[in-house]
């Protein structure tokens, strides 16, 4: 039997805006993914641990409070340091256009802005997941 794709939906730092993260988590669940939602107020270290323990294929970070520029690269680096390099990183939320290149440079595959279509997020994830 084919293994279900596993996605970790994460909120980092002190950002309490969780409407989008929950909607996206539910859309993944409805699309047949195995979903782990971290809940709010997570430190990058804790999320990195969860990524490894839960053996996920995808990490989707939601940010609406401006700390993504610091915290997302931190998370990716923590995982790299532990030899994790086959996870698809996605970001979404309110992320200014001119901060996108920095996130892409850090290893985020794609940034979804406000108004992004749920189906597009799911389709993109399925098409770009690194592990099969």
């Amino acid at each position: 039997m084919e293994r279900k794709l596993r996605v970790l939906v994460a909120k980092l730092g002190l950002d309490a805006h969780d409407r989008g993260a929950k909607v996206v988590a539910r859309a993944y669940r409805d699309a047949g993914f195995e979903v782990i939602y971290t809940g709010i107020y997570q430190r990058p270290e804790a999320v990195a641990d969860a990524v490894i323990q839960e053996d996920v294929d995808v990490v989707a970070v939601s940010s609406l409070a401006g700390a993504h520029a610091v915290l997302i690269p931190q998370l990716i680096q923590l995982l790299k340091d532990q030899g994790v390099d086959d996870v698809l990183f996605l970001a979404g939320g309110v992320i200014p256009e001119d901060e996108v290149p920095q996130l892409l440079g850090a290893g985020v595959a794609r940034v979804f802005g406000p108004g992004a279509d749920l189906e597009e997020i799911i389709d993109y994830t399925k098409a770009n997941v690194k592990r099969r």
Partner: protein
Amino acid sequence: MAAGERRQRFAGVSDREVKRCYGPEDVANLDYARDLGNPGEYPYTRGVHPTMYRGKLWTMRQFAGFGTAEETNARFKFLLEQGQTGLSTAFDMPTLLGYDSDHPYANGEVGKLGVAIDSLKDFEILFDGIPLDKVSTSMTINPPASVMLAMYLAVAEQQGVSWDQVSGTIQNDILKDYIAQKTYIYPPEPSIRLITDVMAFTAKHVRKWNTISISGYHIREAGATAAQELAFTLADGMAYVEAGIKAGLDVDEFAPRLSFFFDVHNDFFEEIAKFRAARRIWARVMREKYGAKSPRSWMLRTHAQTAGVSLTAQQPENNIVRVAMQALAAVLGGTQSLHTNSYDEALALPTEEAVRIALRTQQIIAEESGVASVVDPLAGSYYVENLTNKLEEEANAYFTKIEALGGVVKAIEKNFFQQEIADSAYRFQRRVMKGDYRVVGVNAYADPDEKLETNILKINPEVQRRQIERTQQVRATRDQKKADEALAELHRASQTSENLMPHIVACVKAYCTVGEISGVWRDLWGEYREESVY
């Protein structure tokens, strides 16, 4: 599909199906004296004042805060110069959660979503040159609300303004934080004790202060429908009234200082009906259930803010139109004060130019549209009265459910509200995805070549460094013995049933920081953790 109609089903943002037309049969049981009353009369459906905006326009109160106290002070002064009539303070996430700017968790968050406040020094700068006996100030903060109030009182004192002359509001609504906004720190019991301490203290010493702004805004923004917003907010309000009574306070002593804060979303008539229903339910509950005798306890006074969640990042100028319609609904709904969102807020905190347009929108409604000349002009409309009744019924059904779950706190522990809201948020997003709800510029009339965002407000990364420097200097130069003693006293009193406000005032005057004061309580009370449902 009915013949001659372009859709199978007509429903607005809350997904409530509406009929083609409403008539006398839809308001058959409406009794004017019982259900509406004249403006300024019980049950206040038509407004809390007989003259409403003919007497005094609503307070135009734009929420502002970013960077350090200097930047926000400049924005406050700009807004006052533009004709704004009250202040409203946005704090950054570390402040909202009781961390100082030099706490490791604050890294990258300082000054981002609001102003960074660590000590009284910051407050002195924030209100520099602003006479606190002349403006009223709202502060959107919850677990550290008592600390912000204490700082405000300390600054007033420095300005030579006595405490009974200052007026304003602290949000101080922890229940909606567990439900939706999520800026909680401590568990419910000590959190509610902080709130009742504020209610008791201000009733004696700061009589013009609104002690809780019972908020539906965040509940709605998190995904609730209009009926859920109305029901959950009023249920929270009743829980505070019960907490006050349980703490031994006289209901008529604290209830007049409770105020509300609602969202104004896209569905024009539903929003107007929501405000009318809210006033009627509150008046009835306060008089009949809690036995309040003072008409001031029966009156639901409210602030309103246009729906941030309705703003689109795409074609952001369209937001000016959305905000204008929402603001008009709030005014027709009889709000006491109003914040209009800026058109660029789906992208970032607003620029000065965008804020000016938002404020001008209110001024145009007030000065040019004529709607401020007649009180509750939609009363008697078959549709609006029917909707008002429906919303009241739906809210009552929720109250019964919440009671059956054991009350608001128990319902929170059972994730009742959280699941209801998450379900509504998801249902709405599915409707958008299917094109069943059309959002102009997003899933209808989208511009495929659009390049997002032009000029947005950026927070200088220097802000964090400057703020940390100031806070460390405050700690280095204050009378350390006095600060230690004040914190020790707070620690002691927090383990008794003494009112904590005088101790908090002593702490802030000794330049203890928000992080230090919150730290005392974190140690004693622990931190609340939620189980996330979606």
